[in-house]
């Protein structure tokens, strides 16, 4: 593997990790509120209540970091390559669920993750 490619893969992993942290903060903030019922108006009220929670701002901060790294990655490689490899956030989320949140990760999900890893390897080799 060429060193530049390894560096780009590392950066994409970093954006995926930032996205995962962002999702964890967002999920914990959303869990602290009652979930909204059906209609769009209720959903807007829900989003308004959500954005005053400090954890949501932390989540935005990580999105901003992720965006900056993502822009740099896009300036270096093809979009079709970068977007496919970015699917590695599924792997991070599964690992975070298993080891940080202590959730049970089913066999089917590990199988899915193996497919995603295989896909990323194929895309990276091309």
């Amino acid at each position: 593997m060429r060193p530049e490619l390894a560096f780009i893969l590392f950066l994409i992993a970093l954006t995926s990790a930032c996205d995962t942290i962002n999702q964890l903060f967002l999920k914990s903030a959303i869990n602290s509120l009652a979930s909204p019922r059906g209609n769009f108006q209720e959903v807007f009220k829900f989003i308004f209540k959500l954005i005053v929670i400090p954890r949501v701002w932390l989540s935005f901060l990580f999105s901003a970091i992720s965006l900056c790294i993502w822009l740099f990655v896009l300036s270096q490689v093809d979009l079709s390559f970068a977007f496919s490899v970015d699917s590695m956030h599924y792997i991070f989320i599964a690992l975070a669920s298993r080891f940080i949140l202590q959730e049970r990760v089913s066999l089917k999900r590990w199988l899915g993750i193996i497919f995603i890893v295989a896909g990323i390897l194929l895309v990276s080799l091309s």
Partner: protein
Amino acid sequence: MFKNKLTLKILVFLIFTDFLETFTHLCFKKSVLLEPGLAINKAGDLLIFLQGAFLSPFLWLGLLSVFCTFILWSSLLSRIDLSVAVPICSFSYILIPVASIIFLHEKVSPFRWGGVLFILLGVVFVSLSASEKERALE
């Protein structure tokens, strides 16, 4: 919690979010394409690079599209299970290479399509395992 079955209306909205997401990443890519070829050696170069990207209207169009996707996606998720929504939205893993070929003139090798296929399969498996959990909660 009661959730509606997948209706045609929800399906259309889900596919619309796929297109929005594709549009977002096309805009992001466009915003950095306008930058002259650069090799970044110092942290200062990165700031100059980001400044250039943030001055591009494409970037702001992309961010607007992210915002719309976020609103649409959150409203859709209150009406449909995540395990149904995610596989439909992983359609963007196909849309993005197609859009890259058409609008950015990138070349996508059969090898890369093979990889995309594996990723799609993986995403479907991951979301199927979510549906087991949802059923267990009922």
